[in-house]
């Protein structure tokens, strides 16, 4: 049965998402852990490359936010971000740091944007929480199951807010699909599809090799030790620093984690499964693709992580996901176009541009910091969707079907898989 009020509800959601409503904490009343009443949320940033700069540009557009500090191990990036921020504000106020602890020690900073390479995401987010900061962190948010648990634990421990960079949770076309499922238009949900392709660029199994050593640049240009951070030592090669770290095991969780952190996360969110993970993982296909990992939740719902090319076979765009119920199906991606079964088509309506998802997502965090309510992509939610991806990645490495117990946090049919739940971090870093 379709909810007759679906349109009204949708408009209400959109209204609040597109035009962020910042309610001063003075009005709400300050609670333990709340940001003191102030006009602006003060942000700092750590490790801001191309993706981070995109998120930063949205933060800078919010009058309710102020970005005051950048920390990066790359001198060029520090200078670039400072220049961008100072130009936006018309002053010279953005401070530069090469030590994250100095930035985090600033009492005036409420929240931190973390957009480093994946290896740094969890350790830095936890350190930020220990310093009392709220966090916006790019995805993938963790390098292992163990990091995922530590992340969720730390943000609960310090009562801090965490927004994973899973901005599609605040994207109108994705929200409409979720709304259709929730309203019963699709009937009983039985299968979800998360695009984790294309394997031609993002194979499920990253390389465990090293690149040849190159001469280290001067430390003031690039601090290789700090760049490596929690990742195991290896000789310097400039390709890693230029973004070529992806698809190397010590820095990256392969295509399943890379894209599953986008699309598996969407499935969890849409189906209301933010508090659990699938209990079974069956890898199908090879590393050169196309491949799938067939997963099943305890409630019988299936999740298919599939290599469906960059734009998806229905050309719904990158990061597509699909929900199938016994009465209909719906699929969408970054192109914002929604494909669906014929019976769903009358319920569709135009949705806003995909680019607004990130604006909404940043606004969602700013609202949350003011209200102290959890944002859409909390640490716990991100941990669960990432654990599903890590489990699928481990199943693919093992080449066998794995059974997983979410409560016991262990595979029940493979000891080797259990030994792959965590990775040692390079000293002195820990989670």
């Amino acid at each position, binding site marked *: 049965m379709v909810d007759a009020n679906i349109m009204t509800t949708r408009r209400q959601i959109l209204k609040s998402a597109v035009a962020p409503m910042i309610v001063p904490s003075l009005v709400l009343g300050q609670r*333990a*852990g709340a940001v003191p009443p102030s006009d602006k949320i003060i942000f700092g940033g750590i490790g801001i490359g191309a993706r981070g700069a995109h998120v930063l540009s949205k933060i800078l557009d919010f009058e309710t936010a102020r970005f005051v500090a950048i920390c990066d191990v790359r001198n060029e990036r520090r200078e670039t971000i400072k220049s961008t921020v100072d130009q936006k504000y018309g002053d010279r106020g953005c401070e530069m740091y090469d030590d994250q*602890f100095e930035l985090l020690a600033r009492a005036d900073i409420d929240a931190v944007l973390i957009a480093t390479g994946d290896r740094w995401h969890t350790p830095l987010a936890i350190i930020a*929480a*220990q*310093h*009392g900061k709220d966090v916006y962190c790019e995805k993938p948010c963790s390098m292992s199951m*163990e990091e995922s648990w530590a992340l969720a*634990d730390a943000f609960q*421990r*310090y*009562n*801090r807010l965490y927004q994973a960079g899973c901005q599609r949770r605040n994207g109108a076309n994705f929200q409409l699909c979720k709304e259709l499922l929730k309203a019963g238009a699709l009937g009983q949900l039985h299968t979800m599809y998360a695009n984790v392709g294309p394997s031609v660029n993002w194979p499920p199994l990253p*390389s*465990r*090799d*090293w*690149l*040849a050593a190159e001469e280290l640049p001067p430390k003031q240009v690039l601090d290789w030790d700090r760049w490596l951070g929690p990742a*195991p*030592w*290896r000789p310097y*090669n400039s*390709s890693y620093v230029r973004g*070529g770290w992806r698809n190397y095991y010590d820095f990256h969780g392969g295509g399943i984690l890379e894209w599953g952190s986008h699309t598996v996360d969407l499935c969890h969110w849409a189906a209301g499964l933010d508090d659990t993970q699938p209990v079974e993982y069956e890898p199908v296909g090879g590393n050169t693709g196309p491949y799938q990992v067939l997963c099943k939740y305890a409630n019988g719902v299936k999740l298919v992580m599939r290599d469906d090319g960059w734009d998806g076979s229905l050309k719904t765009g990158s990061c597509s996901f699909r929900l199938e119920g016994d009465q209909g199906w719906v699929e969408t991606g970054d192109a914002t176009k929604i494909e669906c079964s014929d019976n769903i088509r009358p319920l569709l309506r135009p949705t806003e541009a995909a680019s607004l998802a990130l604006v909404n997502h940043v606004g969602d965090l700013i609202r949350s910091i003011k209200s102290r309510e959890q944002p859409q992509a909390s640490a716990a939610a991100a941990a669960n969707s990432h654990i599903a991806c890590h489990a699928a990645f481990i199943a693919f490495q093992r080449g066998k079907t794995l059974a997983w117990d979410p409560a016991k946090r262990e595979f029940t049919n493979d*000891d*080797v898989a*259990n*030994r*792959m*739940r*965590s*990775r*040692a*971090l*390079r*000293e*002195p870093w*820990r989670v």
Partner: protein
Amino acid sequence: MQQSTPPAAKPEVEKPKPPTPPAELQEREIATMDAAALIRILTDAGSPEFQKAKACQRAGELGAVEAVPAMAALLKDERLNTYARYGLEPISHPSADEALRSALTQLKGNLLIGVIASIGKRRDAKATPALAKMMYAGDANVASAAASALGQIGDAAAAKELQAALKKTQGLTKMAVADGLLACAEHLLAEGNREQALGLYVFLSAPELPRPARLGAMAAIIREETRVGRPR
């Protein structure tokens, strides 16, 4: 009606191909080696560090108890320490605990910190006395790592040591001690020791303690006292 002109095709710009790992830095057959072959690599002084690194990773995933001594010998290696711990951490055999505990007295600085982190991850309660002393080390990073490890061990004995240290430590070490106590409280809660856990949270709510930990403790008290369905 205006005719739209199709945009001019953009010239294809070929991206530079990513470099290929040289043959001597490719994992190849190490990925399928058994424990005996891995130990041969690890104990051969002439083995390149790449091979030793990969052998440690493979040995850890295999759970090769026989390789523990060979990996323990690499804990003092500046470059291979992490790989050795990658290998040792997941091996659920007392010999791995013993190797890590033994290294506590042999290492300094970051290498020692790495070993402390591995001990914490394994929740090795036999290391508690040694870790307790390290919270007062001159190296604040070592002291902080020891406090975190005690938090991960998380039993009543670890909590007692951390409580004592909270009054005697400063700065980042004090933060780590407080963090360790919060972790202890979580372990105690998970194990059903609610009163002990709440006692720790009250202890951490004192005004002179680091603000993030104090607010965390206060939030935990509220969460626990308002939890629906808790026994009253």
